[in-house]
Structures are given as structure tokens and as C-alpha cells.
């Protein structure tokens, strides 16, 4: 039996590229179809009925018609526009970083419902939070859980012994921690403070409600930024472009607060 010509799905719009005069190619992350690409016709015209419902970082209910190469969006209705997120420079930048990571860590047409849930939860929490760095780290670790790169934080990845509460090292190449005895076996590893290890374990294993109670000072936050950032870069084998922009904003904010 052939597939029906049209279908409907929820989706969060995670990327858009221009196509021709007034069209766009959208990258959608859906609950049950995984990541899909679709053409949205005429959405760059001011009077397009669809454009507002198909802007980046919008959660919409979308109807699509199957095409030879790419499917075409036929109608769209906003479920959540994440409005608070779009009126704040920092939050928009965080959300773009989140969607860029989802885009880079997934391939087309592979269903990953838990990842969709993490994405949706992260966007919603970003809308109501005052602790964006924590949400980003929470998201990063849960993304790694769902795409199969969950770092080993309990045991030493070389000798399998349980880690002692001391400064151990994180090794991106081995995907986890190394105890002080083993860390010489791997040339690229970063020493990680006891607190940073605890925070990472907690973020990795708890839901957002529990994680949101964590208090992280600036120094610890920078340590986490560095270790997770390096691990992501190692896995993707390229720079995360929006991370560079987040760093610019972070530097500016730090310069203002230190004045």
C-alpha cells in the first residue's frame, strides 16, 4: 500500500535556509518522524499566511504533502511560539545553540521521541528561567544521553574502578572520567574539580525539577562550559557556530559585571 499523499505532524523548527526568490527549506524536529526537511513556499513574502507559524524556534502543527525530493508544507498552526524567548537577546541565543546541537547530533528520518521531549522541555524552561547556563548544561547532558554519547561519570573508563571524590580527569576521546592512576594513559584529558563532577552526575541523572535547585557559581560554570564544550566539539569534529556567539555575549556580560 502506498503512503498517503499528505500527513500531519507536530514539529519544532530548528533551522531554515533560503531557497529561490521567496521560499525556504526548513529543518523540523518532530516527535515521531525524527528530523525532516521540508520546503515552505512563499514564506519570505510579507503576506504569507504560513510565515509566522514557520519561524525558527516555533512549535507548530504542520501539514505536509509528499514530494519527489522534499515534502512541502501545506498548512501550519502555532502550538507555542515561545514568545519570551524571542524578546530576549540571551535567551534567543541560548535557544539557537540548543537547536543547532539537535540539528548536528541527529540524522534525517530517525525517530527519537525522548530527544524531542528534551528539546521541548528545554525551550519551555528557557522561557521561564533566570538560570540559563544551568538549563544549557542540563540540555547538553540529556542530549548526550539520548543520542548515545552519555559520558561515563561514575567509574574510571580505563580501570573500571569507582571514582573517589577527588580531582579526576575527563577524557573526551574515551567518553568519560579517568582516575588519577590512569589519566597519564590518555594525552588529552582535563582535570575536573569534585564539585564539577558532582554537578555533572546530578544533571545527567535527574529531571529538570531537581536539577533547577542547583546553585552554580561563576567559576564552576566556566569549568562546566569548558569540559562539556570540548566533549561536544570532539564528538562533532567541528565548531558549534552559535557557541562562539554565546561566548561573545558571556564575555560582554562578564566585562560589565566586573566593572
Amino acid at each position, binding site marked *: 500500500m502506498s503512503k498517503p499523499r499528505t500527513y500531519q505532524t507536530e514539529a519544532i523548527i530548528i533551522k531554515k535556509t533560503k531557497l*529561490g526568490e521567496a521560499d525556504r527549506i526548513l529543518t523540523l524536529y518532530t516527535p515521531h518522524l525524527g528530523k525532516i526537511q521540508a520546503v515552505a513556499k512563499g514564506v519570505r513574502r*510579507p*503576506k504569507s*499566511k504560513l510565515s*509566522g507559524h514557520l*519561524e525558527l524556534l516555533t512549535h507548530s502543527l504542520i501539514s505536509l504533502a509528499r514530494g519527489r525530493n522534499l515534502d512541502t508544507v501545506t498548512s501550519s498552526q502555532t502550538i507555542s*511560539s515561545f514568545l519570551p524567548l524571542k524578546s530576549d537577546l540571551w535567551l*534567543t541565543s541560548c535557544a*539557537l545553540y540548543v537547536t543547532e546541537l539537535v540539528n548536528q547530533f541527529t540524522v534525517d528520518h530517525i525517530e527519537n521521541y525522548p530527544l524531542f521531549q528534551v528539546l521541548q522541555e528545554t525551550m519551555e524552561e528557557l522561557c521561564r528561567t533566570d538560570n540559563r547556563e544551568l538549563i544549557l548544561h542540563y540540555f547538553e547532558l540529556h542530549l548526550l544521553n539520548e543520542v548515545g554519547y552519555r559520558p561515563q561519570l561514575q567509574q574510571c573508563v580505563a580501570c573500571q574502578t569507582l571514582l573517589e571524590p577527588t580531582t579526576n580527569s575527563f577524557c573526551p576521546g574515551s567518553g568519560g572520567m579517568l582516575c588519577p592512576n590512569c589519566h597519564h594513559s590518555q594525552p588529552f584529558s582535563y582535570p575536573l574539580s569534585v564539585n564539577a563532577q558532582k554537578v555533572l552526575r546530578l544533571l545527567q541523572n535527574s529531571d529538570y525539577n531537581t536539577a533547577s535547585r542547583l546553585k552554580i557559581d561563576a567559576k564552576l560554570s566556566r569549568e562546566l562550559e569548558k569540559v562539556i564544550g570540548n566533549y561536544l566539539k570532539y564528538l562533532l569534529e567541528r565548531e558549534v*557556530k552559535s557557541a562562539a556567539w554565546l561566548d561573545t555575549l558571556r564575555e560582554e556580560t562578564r566585562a560589565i559585571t566586573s566593572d
Partner: protein
Amino acid sequence: MNHGFVPTTNAIDKLVQEFNKLPGIGPKSAQRLAFHLLRAPEEQVEILAEAILTLKQKITLCSVCLNVTESDPCSLCRNDQRDRSAVCIVEQPQDILALEHTGIYKGLYHVLHGAISPTEGMGADDIRIKELISRLQDGRVKEIILATNPTLEGEQTALYLNHLISPLNIKVTRLARGLPFGTELEYADDITLTRAIEGRQEF
């Protein structure tokens, strides 16, 4: 199907290849254009060739507002009739044409030549923000009108500029975002409607 062109010295093929590089021109359109020019009168082709050459030779960026111009500063920046206390920030030179067509705005412009787009690696240093900030130092400008596109990138650029400019004691305004003329309310999205209600005006 063979879409690729083999490099060749044949005049027609060469022209087709060049047309094919233009935005929105595929191999078939390129061929049609090339054969059209082959049949066209010689003087028409000369006018076209000259127009293309002068475009590159004469057009530069205005040193004040970075608009495309034949004379520096551009005609808008030289015009004494225009209000020098207001500067309207746009993404592209084409946006100035659209705004000028309305005839309602009498101030000056600044062209950013792009918008901040983190996922495409476009940061604050990749667009003309530095030029704008140094232009604002003499204190003559009293109002900045942010006329970047109402897309996520344009919005983000506007937010960032506001964050840079508001400490300079300059009034920062944003073009109203609401319902375009000739559309139907039923199809409007949440953000547009929210902004339209917030920005409603007394009749």
C-alpha cells in the same frame, strides 16, 4: 542528465556558464538568455555590457551610511533637507529603497549589510556595527530607528543593537510589528497578533 558544463572556449558556452552563476538562473534559462543576446541588435548588447561594467566601476559604499552609491557621501547623506538627528538601521541597501518609496521618512540611514545569525556563524563583527557606533559618538544623533527584518535574525540584531546603543543616551525605537495590509486576521500568528494588540493605537 548532465548539469555540469565542461569549460570551453566556445563564446556561447562561456556566456551560458556565466549566466548560470547568477541567482535564480538555471542551465536552461542561461541558454535562453545567451541565445536571446546572440539575436539581439548589437547596440543593445553593448548597452548591457557597459551597464554591467559601470556597475562595478562606479558603485561604492557611502563612507557615512554604507549605502551603495556612485558619489561619496551618497545623495541621502549629502541632502541638507534631511533630519540629521534620526538614523534608521536597515539590513540591506534594498531596504532603503523600500523605505524611501513610502516618502514618509526624512532622516538618515545606516546599512548593516547582514544580520546576526549565530547558527550561520554571523556574529557582531561580521556586520557593520562598529561603523555605526563610531558614527554615534559625536552626539548629533538623537534617535535610532531599528528597521531590521521581523525575523528571528533581524530581531536578535535589533536586541543586540539596543543593548549597545541604549547606554549612549540615544532614544532607540523599533518599527512597529503588526498585521500587514491586505491580510486576514484568521491566519495571523501569535507573535504578530500579540504585538499588534500591544501596539494598538487610538483611532
